[in-house]
């Protein structure tokens, strides 16, 4: 069977000289030769190794650590425990800004979750430090672990996600249900999931007096620099974070965590460089996760299959000491038209590490439930699931009535359905079999993600030789920022990408903002674009005021920058190279700066989202209940695409995350102890090659004149959102069984045949 032919790249507009081209990654060669250096690849002279010892209980106190045995092991240099941990300048039980969570850095002997650091062992070798940590043999005073709905502590949260409202209501929901012909209600559960970036969290810390250099993967360099400065009581400019490559982040590398802080502290104490890399199992605790949810959807429907009311209620789990709550219910506020919508979230405290943002936080879990419920509603109305979604198409933003800045969702539905071959799908489940007798089912889900923008700054330097240096402290965790951002900068400067040297991933550069919320390309991109435009404006001033320039006097007409030349706008034959302009005026360089800026009134006036539709085919073994997602087709519209090759990869990756959510991922806690029983990559299942046989993405053209001056929306997370529901719905279509607990497991299908 040949691999499906790669889809032709959707027509994209060539914007100026280069953005919009499907370039390969600028860091590709470094990555395929092993020369890309990730944090743990650093090895400064005299480096020591740090290993955390972690708790094996979920709640209680550490009553004994055999520090003497650990210290007696050859090669062990130091053991940090609450008894001797040097002071920190920040109280770890207090918040430090919105992303500064309360964390565990040996401030006392209490244990609040499994895999919490309870000591740090430093050794001359990794082997010595590892053995030293094992020799600590902790003893505990154990308290019962709170692990679920039945024994957790319920509470009413002040905020959910990052500053979101715990309750949002549009219209009169009760009136909507009273007017409904049909009401569909269903409960869905989503599990604890761990980011499991391939690169474990690591740091190599080196102190020089009161300056510290941190080689670490980081999704928010300048924000983190400020935070580390506060923790260590030094000036922010004394902290240098270097993060040239991240081995994946997915939200787990933006928030400070205890183990990394302890390693930095050990380096200061011992006055030697220290490296710490978490083991895989140690990542199941102190570095965030997607919190568990229990969701209830209630949909009121009129006789035409249109929503009269939508009520989405979610209980979200968090830790006993911090408040990040997966904002799942809010996912129902945006995709579908309904005269009344109510989204509400309740909190549940468990003895677990604090959850955090994980790729499509809220949207992933919330849309999983919403899209499954929409399918149940379509079934209740006797409608095709795609027709049902079209009947509930939102012409304006639900609740606010704001118009969309752009919304090519109809095109996504149409093109996705066509490529997938949706037409002719039997309405009833369990109607299709393949040649081997496997049950075949088709499902659809709507994908949606908002367009947040973050503050960002950049600097561009045009050099006398006509090349440029552009700089911003951004983060490339695999999305391709080094390539896409350089393309945007090159376009603004009227240069070929090869003429642009791009510096990023270092905290001393202008603040590139956060690589998150699918907003990095737009945010850092706008800053770079404006820095480039600043350079061109300065250069134009030099030329048009100079009688020796062919552009002299073009002030009112204006100039355009392309291919290393400024050209008179009305007569491009009159032009001058950057080099000539700079040489004549004797300038060695022109430096421009820029920041993320967009029309804030437009941002208030228009509703801004990326949209998409995902179609899934599954095959299910009728005897064993084994499910395989055999085909995924996603069609997405996300404004202007800076690099279609990289955008495709984002969609593929997002859809595979959706597949993983639907069918594979789940951390299981032992109800007696709270220990996570599958804290490794053999038993915590993430997709491997053979789990994702066919993934296809359609790039639906979309122009957006309002979202920002570049017309860019986000592409990093939307792929997760429609896919989970599409697969769940396909499983129902194949089997006739609704599984409302994720991931959908073969045992659920076998027992409910």
């Amino acid at each position: 069977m040949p691999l499906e032919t790669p889809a032709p790249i959707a027509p994209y507009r060539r914007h100026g000289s280069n953005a919009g081209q499907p370039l390969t990654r600028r860091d590709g060669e470094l990555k395929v030769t092993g020369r890309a250096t990730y944090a743990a690849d650093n090895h400064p002279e005299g480096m020591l190794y740090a290993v955390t010892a972690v708790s094996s209980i979920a709640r209680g106190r550490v009553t004994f650590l055999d520090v003497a045995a650990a210290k007696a092991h050859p090669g062990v240099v130091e053991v940090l425990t609450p008894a001797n941990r040097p002071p920190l300048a920040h109280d770890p039980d207090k918040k430090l800004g919105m992303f500064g969570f309360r964390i565990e850095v040996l401030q006392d002997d209490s244990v609040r979750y499994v895999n919490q650091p309870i000591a740090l062992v430093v050794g001359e070798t990794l082997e010595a430090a590892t053995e030293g940590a094992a020799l600590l043999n902790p003893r505990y005073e154990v308290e019962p672990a709170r692990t679920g709905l039945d024994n957790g502590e319920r509470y009413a949260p002040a905020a959910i996600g990052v500053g979101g409202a715990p309750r949002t209501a549009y219209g009169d929901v009760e009136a909507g249900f009273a007017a409904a012909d049909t009401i569909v209600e269903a409960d869905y559960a989503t599990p604890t999931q761990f980011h499991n970036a391939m690169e474990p969290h690591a740091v190599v810390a080196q102190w020089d007096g009161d300056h510290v250099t941190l080689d670490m993967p980081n999704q928010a360099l300048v924000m983190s620099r400020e935070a580390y400065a506060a923790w260590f009581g030094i000036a922010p400019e004394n902290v240098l974070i270097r993060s040239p490559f991240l081995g994946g982040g997915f939200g787990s590398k933006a928030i400070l965590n205890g183990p990394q802080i302890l390693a930095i502290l050990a380096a200061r104490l011992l006055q030697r460089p220290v490296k710490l890399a978490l083991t895989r199992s140690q990542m199941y605790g102190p570095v965030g996760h997607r919190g568990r949810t229990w969701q209830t959807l209630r949909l009121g429907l009129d006789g035409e299959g249109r929503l009269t009311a939508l009520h989405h209620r979610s209980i979200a789990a968090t830790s006993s000491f911090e408040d990040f709550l997966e904002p799942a219910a809010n996912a129902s506020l945006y995709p579908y038209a309904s005269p009344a919508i109510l989204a509400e979230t309740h909190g549940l405290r468990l003895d677990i590490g604090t959850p955090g943002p994980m790729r499509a936080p809220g949207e992933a879990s919330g849309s999983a439930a919403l899209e499954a419920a929409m399918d149940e509603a379509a079934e209740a109305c006797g409608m095709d699931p795609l027709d049902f979604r079209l009947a509930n198409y939102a012409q304006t933003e639900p609740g606010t009535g704001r118009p969309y800045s752009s919304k090519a969702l109809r095109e996504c539905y149409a093109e996705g359905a066509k490529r997938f071959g949706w037409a002719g799908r039997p309405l009833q489940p369990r109607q299709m079999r393949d040649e081997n007798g496997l049950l075949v089912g088709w499902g659809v889900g709507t994908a949606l993600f908002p367009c947040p923008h973050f503050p960002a700054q950049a600097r561009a330097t045009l050099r006398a030789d006509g090349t440029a240096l552009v700089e911003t402290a951004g983060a490339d965790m695999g999305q391709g920022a080094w390539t896409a951002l350089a393309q945007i900068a090159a376009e603004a400067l009227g240069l070929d990408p090869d003429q642009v040297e791009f510096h990023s991933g270092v905290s001393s550069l202008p603040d590139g903002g956060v690589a998150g919320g699918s907003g990095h390309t737009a945010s850092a991109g706008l800053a770079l674009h404006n820095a480039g435009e600043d350079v061109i404006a300065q250069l134009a001033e030099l030329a048009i005021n100079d009688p020796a320039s062919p552009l002299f006097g073009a002030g009112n007409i204006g100039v355009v920058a392309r291919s290393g030349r400024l050209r008179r706008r009305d007569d491009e034959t009159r032009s001058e190279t950057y080099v000539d302009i700079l040489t004549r005026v004797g300038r060695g360089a022109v430096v421009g700066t820029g920041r993320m800026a967009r029309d804030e009134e437009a941002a208030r006036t228009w509703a801004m989202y990326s949209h998409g539709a995902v179609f899934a085919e599954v095959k299910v073994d009728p005897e064993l209940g084994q499910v395989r997602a055999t085909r995924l087709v996603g069609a997405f519209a996300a404004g202007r695409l800076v690099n279609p090759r990289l955008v495709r990869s984002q969609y593929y990756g997002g859809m595979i995350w959706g597949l993983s959510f639907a069918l594979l991922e789940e951390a299981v806690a032992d109800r007696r102890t709270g220990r996570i029983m599958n804290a490794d990559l053999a038993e915590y299942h993430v997709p491997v090659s053979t789990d994702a046989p066919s993934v296809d993405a359609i790039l639906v053209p979309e122009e957006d004149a309002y979202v920002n001056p570049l017309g860019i929306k986000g592409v990093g997370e939307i792929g997760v959102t429609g896919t989970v529901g599409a697969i769940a719905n396909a499983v129902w279509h194949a089997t006739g069984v609704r599984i409302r607990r994720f991931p959908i497991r073969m045992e659920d299908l076998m027992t409910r045949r």
Partner: protein
Amino acid sequence: MSLSISFNINGQPRTVELDDPRITLLDLLRERLALTGAKKGCDRGQCGACTVLVDGRRINSCLALAVSLDGAAVTTIEGLADGERLHPVQAAFIAHDGFQCGFCTPGQIMSAVGLLAEGQAGDDPERIRELMSGNICRCGAYRGITEAVLDAQKALDGSNRENAA
């Protein structure tokens, strides 16, 4: 305690004094020989990021004790390219965007090179997917990876025919 092994690493004979019998091949490469291309993703043989070739066969270097490699020939990602000229698998990974963050990539590529040498995948993408499933890519670059392996297979077939002729 001192243990000495002699082995061939990326074509160079090398004798190494091991200071500790617990050292894995992966930690030997990464922490003592400055060959950091192979990555530690799990240290349990579950993710494949540490894949290298030992005597031409792909193995998880985190599961091999260094002391067991006396006399072996080890190839890591650093030894794959011919000077500036990329190995066809490396070039194909770039062309097909067979990676995102790049952390699993050295392991994916070494696994693909080993797979092609095993000669059991042919041009069947389903077989390639199955036989590459010991290497996890959390970014989900699997489509590009499969296409890259197919493409490299073709390139290698072509050059083999040229060599034969």
